[in-house]
């Protein structure tokens, strides 16, 4: 949002004042005090007192994460466990049974998920629109089959948890785990930094998770993240959070990174932000998230919004999420995307300056005829049409930890 400098600075102190006055309603994470002691710029976000940036600022924090390791407090998000109320003791049958509780709400295939693996999926409404995007994990431990690890978004968690608990009914129990800390360690040096404290984590494959003993407690660590870099997300009991955070920060390769750089990093990685790039009107195919739709379940017609999804799979959706390389001023959320003869095609849903590329980038929606890479479009910034070219996402290549697969000879 645009405003004058004084208004922007005043709204920042005003937000701080609100955060102090409403301290009883604004939630602290187990790390809020640690952020304040490092002079982080704090802002209310999704009901939590969260760090936007630290002393180096968004640009330097962003570049540090791409070059070294960034630590993110993402405790505002919604980790939870869905478990069967009554297990049979047969691991395969119990996994099938707990998968059957959540699959009716989402478009992913959880039944086929291998032990220890994590999958990105989408909660859908009856019209095939996206209610939220989330991670669903199947524990590796044979004794924990019949349990799923879920991580949903901060702003949507009350609704999501209500839906999931209702769908599970008496057969399942949803246990929230958002009273602890969720800490992300991201960047090319993330594995080395975390391995020094938690030996063994660096052997985890991308999109897998394991429990580790740590200082008398348990850390649930997944190799995943929201930056496009290699990295981990750590679910940590509140009592261990400040100690873990401080020990991670004691490593000079690791800097604390605020939500500001988290947003610019995920934008470069081409990852959608719920409530901005995807919402209840957007279908998975429109959002270019077809990889998250189970072909088995689409074919079986067992997905919510099956009619729309099947039609879009056959005929193509009427709009697609595209990446844009923008010339001139950054095009931000809400900027109009236009085509030939200034015809309005859609809107920018996220946009800003890419610190890695040193140029503005954006994502938004356009009809399929204008969604192919190298299509020349325009975006309207402050009343002026600027050149914008469709580019493939991610804008900055992902560097996930994928061990080289053996070549078949």
């Amino acid at each position: 949002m645009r405003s004058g400098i004084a208004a922007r600075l005043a709204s920042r102190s005003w937000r701080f004042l609100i955060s102090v006055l409403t301290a009883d309603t604004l939630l602290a994470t187990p790390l809020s005090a640690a952020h304040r002691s490092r002079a982080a710029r704090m802002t209310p976000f999704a009901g939590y007192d969260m760090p936007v940036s630290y002393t180096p600022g968004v640009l330097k924090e962003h570049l540090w994460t791409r070059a070294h390791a960034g630590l993110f407090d993402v405790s505002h998000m919604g980790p939870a466990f869905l478990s069967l109320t009554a297990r049979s003791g047969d691991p395969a049958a119990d996994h099938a049974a707990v998968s059957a509780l959540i699959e009716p709400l989402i478009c992913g295939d959880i039944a086929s998920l291998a032990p220890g693996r994590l999958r990105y999926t989408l909660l859908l409404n009856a019209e095939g629109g996206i209610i939220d995007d989330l991670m669903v994990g199947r524990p590796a431990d044979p004794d924990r089959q019949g349990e799923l690890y879920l991580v949903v978004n901060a702003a949507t968690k009350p609704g999501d948890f209500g839906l999931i608990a209702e769908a599970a009914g008496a057969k399942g129990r949803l246990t929230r785990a958002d009273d602890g800390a969720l800490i992300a360690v991201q960047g090319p040096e993330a594995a080395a930094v975390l391995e020094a404290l938690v030996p063994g984590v660096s052997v985890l494959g991308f999109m897998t998770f394991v429990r580790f003993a740590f200082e008398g407690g348990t850390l649930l660590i997944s190799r995943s993240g929201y930056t496009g870099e290699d990295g981990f997300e750590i679910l940590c009991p509140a009592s261990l959070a400040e100690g873990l955070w401080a020990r991670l920060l004691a490593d000079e390769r690791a800097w604390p990174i605020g939500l500001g750089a988290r947003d610019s990093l995920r934008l470069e990685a081409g990852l959608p932000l719920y409530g901005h790039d995807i919402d209840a009107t957007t279908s998975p195919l429109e959002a270019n998230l077809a990889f998250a739709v189970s072909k088995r379940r689409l074919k079986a017609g067992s997905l919510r919004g099956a009619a729309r999804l099947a039609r879009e799979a056959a005929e193509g959706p009427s709009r697609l999420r595209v990446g844009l390389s923008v010339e001139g001023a950054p095009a931000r959320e809400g900027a109009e995307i236009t085509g030939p003869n200034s015809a309005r095609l859609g809107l920018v849903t996220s946009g800003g300056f890419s610190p890695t590329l040193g140029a503005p980038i954006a994502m938004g929606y356009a009809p399929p005829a204008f969604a192919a890479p190298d299509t020349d479009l325009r975006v309207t910034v402050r009343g002026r049409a600027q050149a914008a070219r469709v580019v493939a996402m991610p804008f900055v290549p992902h560097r996930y930890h994928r061990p080289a697969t053996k070549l078949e000879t």
Partner: protein
Amino acid sequence: MRFTKDHEWVEMEGDIATVGITAYAAEQLGDVVFVELPAPGASLKAGAEMAVVESVKAASDVYAPLSGEVTLANADLSDNPQSVNDAPENGGWLVKIKIADPAEVEALMDRDAYEAHLRSL
């Protein structure tokens, strides 16, 4: 040097005012990645939008501290917007304005008054 409550500074030389944003504003806004300036010849009214300074996350308007006509915009900022952070009160200047009303300059704060204003925030 004179200052506004909107965190701009003005340095007068004859009837030409050099204008920029203060070190405080630059520090608070964070790294500047894009600056949009008015073209020479543009007519400015004190208090109206004059320029836009953008950080990674946000665009902020800069208001004209004085009425007049733009004589020069700092072309160096299109390649080096970071100058606004590195040298906000000299190399990171935004525009030069041929002022219309010297009385407007007298109404601006001096450095002591601006610093007192900052302490009140």
